[in-house]
């Protein structure tokens, strides 16, 4: 008999406890993140944004690609299509820019002043970026350094089929010049699958290039490396003044 009434008491009291909780919960602000209208809510309620290192849409800095096709080869789904051709004799392209990636995913792009691809502990890595700002970091914080490379190939085609891509990021990891990278863009749905084939090759960067006389001579001559050095120095100067 006692158990009977205790049972009733337990049922009623626990129901009341539950009802109190749900009633209190009614006055809590909602946690819904109204996705397409998110921006406004993000500002007002400080909703968490996209993380650093998020793997979104692929993007490539075409002027830094050397056409090595490493990315196309490692891609597990073979969705990168690259076609290259040799440069006409005498035409040289600018060297690629160096890239330093820190462990907190900050990326600096520009001209490497100190440091190497092999990151020695206890040294510093120094880089001047395209705006002329100097960046410096102890090598413990550096994750990845890519030095400047020569560009010898012309890219006629560089297509990535994002409808096949599975966002594994392997292509960005092997890229010789770190010019292929993943952005935070994730809203690129289309109504048509074909429009997910992104064309990155840009013929305009090869336009207006004429065979450089001195360059050709230097290339032919014994001191080819000398000429190259001169050219690099000149370019550096140009960039500095600009």
């Amino acid at each position, binding site marked *: 008999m006692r158990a009977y009434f205790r049972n009733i008491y337990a049922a009623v009291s626990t129901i009341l406890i539950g009802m109190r909780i749900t009633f209190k*919960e009614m006055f809590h602000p*909602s946690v819904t993140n*109204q996705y397409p209208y998110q921006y406004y809510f993000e500002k007002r309620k400080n909703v968490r944004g996209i993380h650093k290192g998020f793997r979104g849409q692929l993007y490539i800095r075409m002027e830094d690609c050397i056409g090595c096709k490493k990315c196309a080869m490692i891609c597990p789904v073979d969705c990168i299509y690259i076609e290259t051709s040799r440069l006409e004799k005498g035409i040289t392209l600018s060297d690629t820019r160096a890239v330093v990636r820190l462990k907190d995913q900050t990326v600096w792009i520009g001209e490497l002043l100190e440091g190497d691809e092999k990151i020695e502990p206890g040294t510093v890595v120094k880089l001047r970026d395209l705006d002329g700002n100097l960046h410096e970091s102890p090598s413990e914080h550096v994750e990845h350094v890519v030095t400047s490379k020569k560009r010898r190939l012309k890219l006629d085609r560089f297509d990535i089929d994002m409808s096949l891509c599975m966002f594994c990021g392997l292509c960005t990891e092997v890229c010789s010049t770190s010019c292929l990278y993943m952005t935070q863009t994730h809203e690129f749905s289309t109504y048509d699958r074909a429009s997910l084939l992104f064309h990155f090759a840009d013929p305009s960067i090869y336009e207006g290039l004429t065979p450089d006389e001195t360059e050709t001579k230097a290339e032919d001559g014994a001191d080819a490396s000398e000429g190259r050095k001169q050219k690099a120095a000149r370019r550096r100067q140009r960039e500095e003044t600009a």
Partner: protein
Amino acid sequence: MELLSSLIFMLVIAAALLGFVMLLALILVLAERKVSAYMQDRVGPRRVGPFGSLQTIADAIKLLLKEDIISLQADRKLFILAPYLVFVSSFAVFAAIPFGRNLIASDINIGILYIMAISSVVVLGIIMAGWASNSKWALLGAMRSAAQMVSYEIPLALSILSVIMLVGSLRMQDIVGAQSGGLFSAQNRWILLDNPFTFLAFFIYFISALSEVNRTPFDLPEAESELVAGFHTEYSGMRFALFFLAEYANMFAVSAIAVTLFLGGWSGILPGYTFLNGVPGFVIKVSVLVFVIMWLRWTLPRLRVDQLMSVCWKYLIPIAFFNLIGVGVWILIFD
């Protein structure tokens, strides 16, 4: 001629009530979605119309436009009849609910008995739907609902009986009249506060009524997680909408009956205080009860079948009997 005019009059009243029930369902569905959303820290519908107020209308239109599927194996005649039976019997309850002093479609002298009788027909409709669907989910849901509704009708009737004993009439307006004193007066108080036994009777009524209308925690007939959708699994489009409409109409009806029987009906909270007298007061009281029903739904988990039966037969029915005797003794001694 006499007959014709009274027939037209009846039809007009029925149409008005039907419109009211439709409107009610629209409001209650939205209210339920909003209440559930707020209880779960969500925002609920808010895109269609201002603050989502037109969401239910959009849903209703969607349901009406959907294909009406009758499966080949179904018992066609019963399958078509069942939703109407369920809806009509829950709609007919509204005929005897007093909304105000003169606002009652038919103040018959057996009002509450009529309500009890006509609302029991719902169970026939549900069994019909379950059987005619020829689907195991629907049949299981229907069997459960039959067991549940038949069992819970007993405590429901017993708790209503204690009110009838006290008032001495089955007429709804008489029951309201017996509570005209409002909440605090010594005479003609709300039946809820008349004596401890009627206080208990209110809760017995409320629990059994929850079960009668298949609301959580007694929603076994439609338990989504076990039976897909219970007795209306095979229904689609318009016919499903009828079941849906009936559910919300029922929810309002049981709250309205609870208010009429125990909480003073349309009469005001304080005697002579006119603001909450009549329809506004009635609507407020009913809305509070409807809110409590929704609140319970979003708080409590569903009972198991054996728990459901033990709640009824081991707890509610003995207590209701004891209560009925208590009310009788109280009337003998004090009145």
